[in-house]
């Protein structure tokens, strides 16, 4: 979203907020319990999980997301898993995006799967579902309603060449006590436009073909940390936060691949911790 559009949206939103008291107390009924939205979720759930039962939970997984996103192409999501010793994998599904599957995180033995952060595109006011798969193969879901729109088709203001400059470059930040042997927090940043095949190129006025990261494999030494299967809802220049338990000297290795055969690898050592 360009700054001009963002400002217009901002002023539109604020203008309506300011005039809202005039409308009388008509609180919006939009929520997760809307039967139409529930039917939609059942459809998505059946597509991805088949016959497997997906039970609601208030505790095993939680979603933190802005109720109203200022930039629909960059919506921050935090997932917390309370029973982190019993987490096999986590799904993030954005119900009303045309491609609802956003990401699947599969944790390995070196993971500390208590918290995940990522940034996504959201195309409409929608329910966002997070599903945790426990080690015994059970599925539990929770939901948040997020108000954002246009994140999937928001035009990118730069040329393809500009957007792809440095594609595959990675940065990693670690935080925590490296000597204590406890879990460390990692922030992985990957430079990639993650073209979703729906964005208009403002220079050529044509739709950019899709090209996005579909797999990231993170390991530490000989142990898997996390494998991320991603889709077109992951925001441009993906950033993921996760934690891991550093057993041995490492290093942490990250392997990124995209839908056009792009393949990038980089290793990081935890010795240069900033704190």
């Amino acid at each position, binding site marked *: 979203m360009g700054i001009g559009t963002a400002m217009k*949206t901002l002023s539109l*939103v*604020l203008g309506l907020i*300011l005039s809202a008291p005039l409308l009388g107390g008509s609180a919006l009924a939009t929520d997760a319990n809307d039967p139409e939205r529930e039917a939609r979720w059942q459809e998505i759930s059946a597509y991805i999980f088949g016959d497997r039962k997906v039970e609601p939970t208030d505790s095993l997984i939680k979603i933190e997301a802005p109720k109203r996103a200022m930039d629909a192409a960059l919506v921050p999501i935090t997932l917390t898993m309370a029973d982190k010793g019993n987490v096999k994998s986590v799904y993030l599904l954005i119900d009303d995006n045309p*491609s609802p*599957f956003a990401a699947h995180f599969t944790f390995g033995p070196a993971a500390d799967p208590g918290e995940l952060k990522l940034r996504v595109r959201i195309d409409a006011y929608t329910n966002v579902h997070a599903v945790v798969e426990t080690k015994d193969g059970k599925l539990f879901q929770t939901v948040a309603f997020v108000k954002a*729109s246009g994140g999937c088709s928001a035009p990118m203001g730069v040329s393809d060449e500009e957007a792809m400059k440095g594609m595959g470059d990675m940065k990693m930040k670690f935080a925590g006590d490296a000597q204590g042997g406890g879990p460390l927090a990692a922030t992985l940043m990957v430079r990639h436009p993650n073209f979703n*095949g729906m964005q208009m190129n403002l220079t050529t006025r044509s739709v950019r073909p899709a090209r996005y990261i579909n797999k990231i494999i993170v390991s530490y030494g000989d142990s898997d940390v996390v494998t991320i299967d991603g889709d077109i809802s992951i925001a441009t220049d993906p950033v993921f936060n996760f934690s891991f338990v550093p057993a041995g000297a490492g290093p942490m290795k990250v392997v990124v691949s995209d839908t056009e055969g792009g393949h990038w690898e980089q290793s990081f050592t935890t010795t240069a911790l900033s704190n």
Partner: protein
Amino acid sequence: MRFPSAIVAKGAAIVAAVAILLSSGPAGTADDVPEPEGVWTGPMHGTTPKTLKGAIVLDIAGLDALMAQRALFLDVGPADKKPADFPKDLPWLPIHRTIPGSVWLPGAGAAPLEQAREDVFYARVEELTRGDKSRPVVTFCHPDCWGSWNTAKRLVLKGYTRVHWYPDGIEGWQITHETAAVKPDSVWDAASASGTQP
């Protein structure tokens, strides 16, 4: 909805700041896009004029008022297009939420529109209004979308007398109102699918 006065005051300050930013912009941007003679044949996404000769430009209050008047609501927002090479094992489930009761004619605001499709568009509107050119019609899609401007313009040019354009579109509506999921209008969709699409 009620908001604490502190938030309202903060909001007002931001609106004021935005207003200053917009008004200090160079000429030719934001506020003064001139109306084209006929329909706009440039890129569909972009800043639109604030006016439309022969039509009424609505804000949300005007739209609410019109709701009671049996108006025909035409949504011309585009349909999501499946990216090439989309993975076969993942769900592609586009959904279109709009103002409840609207007729969705995806892409009908495009220009130029192939003659056969334009004919289908006019025939469909005539059918939906039962030939009553004084029936109120509202066109909309998204902010910064010429499609709804063009659609309103086409109706004005065709002699419809109560044409309304709602530039804030679905995004403006959903801030204070519920949306409903709709499928494309079957007649329009059939015409679009039968090879008359540009």
